[in-house]
């Protein structure tokens, strides 16, 4: 997995609440057996008309947000399905950080497996960053995972919480499976115990 240390870039504002995984990547694109190449279909139904032409009013189609690296979104971002295609599409587009007041649980976990940092901030701070994002291309937001800070283009700095284990994995680009494999003896010991206690399981 790609490391995440610092990120500096334009943030796209999406103030809508309850942006669900069907909006992020409609099911028609879940038929792939690969992880890559979904960025072009990110927010597909909001981004293109039925003929595949870009809708000019959609935020990521505007010149100033086409290279956005950050998304500032409304409450409960990523609700709905467990499809990891949602973070795959976001990362493939080039967005590596999503900021909101809250995230759906499965989506939140999926982000960390794909080098994306989801940041939860209080409403007033998200508002500041949302207005900052609305300023467009001249407004660069800076994210520092090590220090757990986000700086607005005006230099206002907010700190955020992140699970220490997830932070460690993201900073170092670590693969969970490799880490768990190191606990092989614990797993074997558990299985031996469980086969006595719960032989039917």
């Amino acid at each position: 997995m790609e490391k995440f240390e610092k990120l500096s870039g334009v943030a796209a504002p999406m103030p809508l609440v309850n942006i669900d995984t069907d909006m992020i990547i409609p099911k028609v694109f879940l038929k792939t057996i690969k992880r890559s190449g979904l960025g072009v279909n990110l927010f597909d139904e909001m981004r293109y008309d039925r003929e595949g032409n870009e809708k000019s009013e959609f935020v990521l189609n505007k010149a100033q947000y086409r290279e956005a690296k950050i998304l500032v979104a409304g409450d409960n971002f990523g609700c709905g399905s467990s499809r990891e295609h949602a973070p795959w599409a976001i990362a493939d587009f080039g967005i590596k950080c999503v900021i909101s007041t809250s995230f759906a649980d499965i989506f939140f976990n999926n982000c960390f497996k794909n080098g994306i940092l989801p940041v939860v901030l209080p409403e007033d701070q998200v508002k500041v960053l949302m207005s900052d994002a609305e300023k467009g291309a001249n407004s660069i937001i800076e994210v520092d995972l090590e220090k757990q800070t986000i700086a607005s283009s005006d230099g206002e700095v907010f700190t955020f919480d992140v699970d220490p284990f997830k932070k460690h994995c993201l900073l170092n680009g670590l693969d969970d499976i490799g880490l768990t494999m190191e606990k092989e003896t614990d797993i074997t010991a558990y299985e031996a115990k469980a086969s006595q206690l719960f032989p039917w399981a």
Partner: protein
Amino acid sequence: MSTPKTLYDKIWDAHIVHNDSDGTCLLYIDRHLVHEVTSPQAFEGLRMSGRKVRAPEKTIAVPDHNVPTTPNRDNVIDNEESRIQVEALDKNAKDFGVIYYPVSDIRQGIVHIVGPEQGWTLPGMTVVCGDSHTATHGAFGALAHGIGTSEVEHVLATQTLIQKKSKNMKVEITGTLRPGVTAKDITLAVIGETGTAGGTGYVIEYCGQAIRDLSMEGRMTVCNMAIEGGARAGLIAPDEKTYEYCKGRPHSPKGTSWEMALAYWKTLFSDSDAVFDKVVTIKGEDIAPLVTWGTSPEDVLPITAAIPDPESFSGGKIEAVRRSLEYMGLEAGQKLSEIEIDTVFIGSCTNGRIEDLRAASEILKGKKIKDGMRAMVVPGSGLVRLQAEEEGIAEIFREAGFEWRLAGCSMCLAMNPDQLAEGERCASTSNRNFEGRQGYRGRTHLVSPAMAAAAAITGKLTDVREIIQ
């Protein structure tokens, strides 16, 4: 005295493989359910790193999302991408030696219906699947939740999951339900009360007389939509009904093993003095037949209500409601019972079990669907279909004018040929009314099976209580 525990605490504690000082746990997974959409990249990951499936005997795969539900589907899936995904699962199941129910198997169906039906899902287990509606299995007092594809690969390789514990939430439904009110209405009522983010960070335990009174099928419906309330999982403590359901299933324990399991299952309840971080109580008598009007499951009201004014909401929800009313082609003040529909879908992991089909057929008996209505019923598994045919239910549906389909996810998510056309409006027993969920620019109203049947007859969203009388 030991610390009082909730049901969730007990299942969690029984599955800890390793506990890190920061609270990160490695949790053992008893059952891993797999379908064709969220698994190909995970199996590919195993191949690339030369890893095996650690416990193929605990890994159960079944294609459901992509499969057509029309007859003679065994050999041909027209859509090439769908066919490739199903073929990939065929190959992965074979190569890695996991338990498999292919499209041609009578036991095939929606993974969350097949698991319990075959006795794979049992009380006290941890159950995961790359699918958010894994919450369904919580009805057995199993800790069950959806995971992403990276986690699917992690479970395949290690039979464990890296987890942090959620908080405990109790949702109590007291008293008894009124006639015409079902498990679907309970679960929609809870989401209406807490909102789609109300359960975020929690595992919900549903309890109370109205929950106890539900059949296992009804309990699965309630837990199925715990995810729509944002919760990691929904749980219901096992009781006699649970044991009765599990007994004699192909993969449930037998003989002394059954006795041992039963003794353990009887310890699976929240201690009377256990502490919950959040408690929600709803009176069963207060729940009416419900219907969603917007594009989020929290946009739910009794069938007797009218479409709300966007201005009556606050914050970002005002804009979201404006957007959803425009999408749904509805206006504030419009009565829900006057909304005309053109499609009815009965099925899905929420409402595709035998009891759901019975409830809908009760309403349809001796009646016809409205002229021009497209109505389909899609049993949740081949065995549900068979049972419904034996009980004469299939005939009632056919007589009424419903299409009687083969098992699959069907129109719940439109990854297969069953889809809404642009602008079509559907009374659906599924679980999500998101934009485009049932087809590009299709419009979804979530309802119970009985309400869906009522709507099929009248051609509009209908209070099922008027038909029962």
